[in-house]
């Protein structure tokens, strides 16, 4: 699933043609308006940005003059400050009586000139102060853009722009000094030198170099010019009027990346997306404009994060926290402190951001905790969705003071159940211990109790009274004297809470869903600094994006963001042990490939050759079934190049036909050729699942065991441990209809929910089903007349449609009837079997040879119509292997010798 960087629908680029008085929206088009009668503007939800040619010309004409004046002013002021410094120093020395010997200096210090110089010096300090602090005290800041609602966009399209409802801002006023200077320096003779600016930015701008470095690619002007033919004809010079368009697109980039000002990097990004050739260049490098923007956004977030701690800056919001004496008005929690930890304090000591992607849930939780009654909350969600992070997010908000007044100064105390039990062994009665701790909590007035994995309280019992811990805590939960937050997953909620009315009623349930891929990326961004420090590596952004996408696709047993975090950590760890410093998307693919035992790395030359010759290689081993071989190899190629639908199995096939023609053998050969090992295919004999009870066996219930009391390894276990394989369901018509219904889910969605509630992923498997339906009809046709084969096939298909439900049949990618083998094909099969025998004998040091007639002789002798290749196997086993064994036993054949297969062995 491609990542959505969540940058759409925050801005609208519009234009106006004065000649026709026509307004319009520029959707996915980036024209450069050179005609003075055409205008361009940018709309956000609350503002619109415009730019005019006089503004630009004013900048170009005057900016450098103002800058030069400023530089001269600064130099002069610095020079004029110096006398004041010396005078001040001398005055200090004079008052310290250190200049008594230097009467001339003391006389000069009392003169009028010195006073005047000192006064001028002070005045120049004031001028320098203004120069230095003007921007710091009143920083120019682009407003943050929120998403524009679709209905607003529709309204604009229907009724036009209503500029009155937006605040009007001038684009030029947000341009930084570097941007203005670049505009001046790259405008010559009324022409803006776009390509020269582009080259300059790529070579010289530090921010752009940082962005390019983080993207994991190298961009060079030489490569662009030579390989991609990007030059002045692609990025031409423009008249000044065209700068309106370029700067409008640039400020759009600045807004999307939440920058404070319009910086040179935004002009660079704008130029990259304006021209198809430049876009193609970065796509060829494996990145997109969205990734470059996201990197810029990340860099800006680091700057914003640093500023968050400036409490005295009136431009930054401040929330009351309570101060040094805030704990005086709340009670002690001595006993509780032995088996709990204060999360608010823990969170205050580190600078990570928690609760990303759970804003709605945090708001819900804060509102529940702030209620007067029934202020308990139960967070329900799968493992790894971020329930704990959500709680830490609330703790962080309490620390910063960004909570309603009822939650100010509160602290979140996490109960450690194991610590409680351990402590009770020392202190004695656990029930008494809990009561004392709860009384402390009630008395403290500022504690919120947090119990992680709340279901663990229910089976845990107090030794003395045999009451469960949940039962002991229940009165406190019901009384709601202090808020309690619990976390639990869906299956445990259903098992323990749903049936218990009083428990259920005393909590407000808050469902915690899996975080989106966009928010997961943001979470990973917050971990970059820590990971780079711990693993001594450099993480590129494509690696982060790959972690999110591949974790979402391949790690189904854990949810986002936990799966993505584990993926990037595993990659960093793997990279560290392989001395890799720079982590790219390829490394993430490699780490997942190793972890999940699947191959998702880019196709290299060797593998490309293997994929091209796949059909040929399989045909060498499977004789005469071209339709089946082509169908399977096409699905494998689609899988490996990632073109297929990732939400379904790689391919789902049904093979029918007479016995011994290669249905099962094809599955084995595919397993060997593509997945690497013949024996790794998962073979399920559906005749074992005929009765209704076998559904449990199929879904992997833990009660199934063999006579020795060992738990059987089920299909579910085998697919979980080897998800990239061929799964062969033999004789599916024998399975119970309820099991065939499970196939609907497997074939359509590539997943199966096991008895334990786990989702088993089949999306990386090839599923091959075999069936004997219609085999009687096909065998009869072969016995009577092979010319009747075509008609027999049709009748077999009719019988198939009558035997299996239409919805199941409809889910097969292909239903293939395997053809009987003719005598030439049987000859080839005999040749193959002899070659296999030869390879086995080479291991023993014996070389077998045969003439060209031998395979045909075997085919003729062993052929049984309708029985396929199996008679040949039996024949070779009896006649040839038997004879060789006899020779070995008689001592006529030793290691290093050769033997010819004789015709008389066969005839």
């Amino acid at each position, binding site marked *: 699933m491609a990542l959505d960087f969540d940058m759409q629908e925050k801005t609208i680029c519009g234009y*106006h043609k*004065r000649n026709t008085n026509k307004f319009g929206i520029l959707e996915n088009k980036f024209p450069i308006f050179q005609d*003075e*009668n*055409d*205008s361009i*503007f940018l709309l956000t939800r609350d503002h619109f940005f*415009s730019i*005019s*040619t*006089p503004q630009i*010309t*004013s900048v*170009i*004409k*005057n900016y450098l*003059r*103002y800058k030069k*004046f400023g530089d001269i*002013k600064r130099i002069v002021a610095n020079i004029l400050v110096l006398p004041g410094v010396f005078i001040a120093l001398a005055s200090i020395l004079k008052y310290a009586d250190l200049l008594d010997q230097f009467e001339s200096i003391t006389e000069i210090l009392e003169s*009028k000139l010195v*006073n*005047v110089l000192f*006064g*001028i010096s*002070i*005045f120049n300090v*004031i*001028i320098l102060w*203004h120069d230095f602090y*003007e921007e710091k*005290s*009143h920083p120019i800041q682009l407003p943050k853009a929120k998403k524009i609602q679709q209905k607003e966009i529709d309204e604009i399209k229907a009724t036009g722009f209503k*500029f009155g409802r937006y605040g*009007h801002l001038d684009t030029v006023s947000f341009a930084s000094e570097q941007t203005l200077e670049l505009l001046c320096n790259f405008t010559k003779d*009324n022409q803006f030198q776009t390509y020269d600016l582009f080259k300059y930015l790529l070579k010289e701008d530090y921010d752009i170099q940082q962005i390019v470095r983080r993207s994991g690619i190298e961009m060079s002007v030489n490569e662009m010019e030579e390989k991609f033919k990007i030059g002045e004809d692609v990025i031409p010079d423009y008249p*000044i009027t065209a700068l309106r368009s370029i700067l409008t697109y640039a400020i759009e980039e600045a807004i999307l990346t939440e920058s404070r000002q319009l910086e040179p990097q935004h002009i660079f990004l704008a130029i990259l997306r304006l021209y198809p050739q430049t876009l193609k260049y970065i796509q060829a490098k494996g990145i997109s404009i969205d990734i470059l923007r996201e990197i810029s956004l990340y860099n800006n977030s680091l700057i914003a994060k640093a500023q968050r701690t400036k*409490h*005295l*800056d*009136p431009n930054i919001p*401040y929330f*009351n*926290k*309570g*101060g*040094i*004496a*805030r*704990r*005086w*008005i*709340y*009670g*002690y929690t001595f006993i509780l402190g032995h088996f709990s930890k204060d999360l608010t304090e823990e969170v205050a000591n580190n600078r990570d951001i928690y609760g990303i992607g759970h804003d709605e849930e945090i708001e819900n939780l804060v509102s529940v905790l702030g209620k007067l009654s029934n202020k308990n909350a139960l967070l329900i969600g799968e493992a790894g969705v971020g329930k704990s992070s959500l709680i830490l997010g609330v703790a962080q908000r309490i620390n910063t003071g960004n909570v309603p007044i009822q939650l100010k*100064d509160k602290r979140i105390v996490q109960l450690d159940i194991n610590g409680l039990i351990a402590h009770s062994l020392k202190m004695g009665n656990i029930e008494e211990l809990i009561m004392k701790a709860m009384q402390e909590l009630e*008395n*403290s*007035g500022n504690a919120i109790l947090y119990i992680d994995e709340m279901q663990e309280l229910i089976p845990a019992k107090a030794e003395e009274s045999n009451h469960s811990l949940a039962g002991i805590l229940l009165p406190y939960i019901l009384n709601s004297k202090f808020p309690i937050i619990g976390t639990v997953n869906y299956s445990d909620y259903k098992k323990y809470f749903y049936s218990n009315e009083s428990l259920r009623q005393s909590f407000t349930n808050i469902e915690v869903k899996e975080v989106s891929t966009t928010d997961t990326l943001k979470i990973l961004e917050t971990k970059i600094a820590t990971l780079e420090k711990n693993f001594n590596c450099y993480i590129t952004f494509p690696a982060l994006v790959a972690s999110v996408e591949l974790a979402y696709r391949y790690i189904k047993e854990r949810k986002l963001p936990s799966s993505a975090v584990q993926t990037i950590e595993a990659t960093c760890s793997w990279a560290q042990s392989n001395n890799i410093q720079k982590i790219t998307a390829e490394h993430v693919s490699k780490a997942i490939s190793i972890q999940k035992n699947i191959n998702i790395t880019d196709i290299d030359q060797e593998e490309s050759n293997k994929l091209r010759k796949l059909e040929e290689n399989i045909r060498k081993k499977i004789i005469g079934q071209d339709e089946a071989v082509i169908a399977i190899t096409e699905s494998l190629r689609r899988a490996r190049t990632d073109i297929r639908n990732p939400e379904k199995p790689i391919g789902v096939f049904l093979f029918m036909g007479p016995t011994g023609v290669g249905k099962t053998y094809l599955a084995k050969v595919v397993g060997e050729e593509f997945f690497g090992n013949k024996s790794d295919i998962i073979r399920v004999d559906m005749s074992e699942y005929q009765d209704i009870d076998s559904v449990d066996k199929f879904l992997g219930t833990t009660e199934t065991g063999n006579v020795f009391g060992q738990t059987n390894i089920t299909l579910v276990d085998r697919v979980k441990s080897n998800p990239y394989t061929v799964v062969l369901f033999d004789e599916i018509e024998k399975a119970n209809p309820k099991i065939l219904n499970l196939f609907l889910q497997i074939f359509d969605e590539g997943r199966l929910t096991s008895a334990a509630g786990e989702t088993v992923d089949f999306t990386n498997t090839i599923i091959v089903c075999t069936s004997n339906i219609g085999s009687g009809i096909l065998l009869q046709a072969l016995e009577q007349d092979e010319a009747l084969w075509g008609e027999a096939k049709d009748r077999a298909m009719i019988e198939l449609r009558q035997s299996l439900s239409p919805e199941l049949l409809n889910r097969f990618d292909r239903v293939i009837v395997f053809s009987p083998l003719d005598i030439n094909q049987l000859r080839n099969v005999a040749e193959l079997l002899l070659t296999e025998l030869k390879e086995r004998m080479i291991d023993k040091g014996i070389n077998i040879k045969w003439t060209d007639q031998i395979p045909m002789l075997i085919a003729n002798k062993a052929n049984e119509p309708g029985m396929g290749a199996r008679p040949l196997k039996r024949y070779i086993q009896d006649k040839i292997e038997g004879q060789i064994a006899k020779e070995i036993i008689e001592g006529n054949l030793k290691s290093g010798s050769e033997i010819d297969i004789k015709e008389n062995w066969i005839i």
Partner: protein
Amino acid sequence: MEVKNTVSDSSGQQLLTETKTDSYSAIFLYFIQDFLRWWYVRMPIWHLRKLARISVVVNDNLSLSLLVQNFFLPWHRDYSMMGYVFGLLIKILYIPIALIIYLTSILVYTIIILIWLLLPIGTLTFIFTSILR
């Protein structure tokens, strides 16, 4: 009703060659206007905002308002005689000290604002009186 098109109003549009370049004297005048506007209009407002922020931050960090609001609450919510007495005693000792710090910080910053306003005028006065003396 004709609505003025702020986006592409043709009034005032000039070609590059027709745009006039500001002279250095115009730039100098602009600098003086900008300086005076910054020093006597924008910065005093900023200083007042900063003063308000300082009062909030100092009050919050010293827990002054919090302790005043909970003046009669016993020490760590110990509802015994000792708790009440100790709580009152600590607050009676602490609150005046915190108040002094609070008022001092406000006073200091107010003086800074006054100095700010007087500094350019004072400096110029000092220069002129030195010349004339």
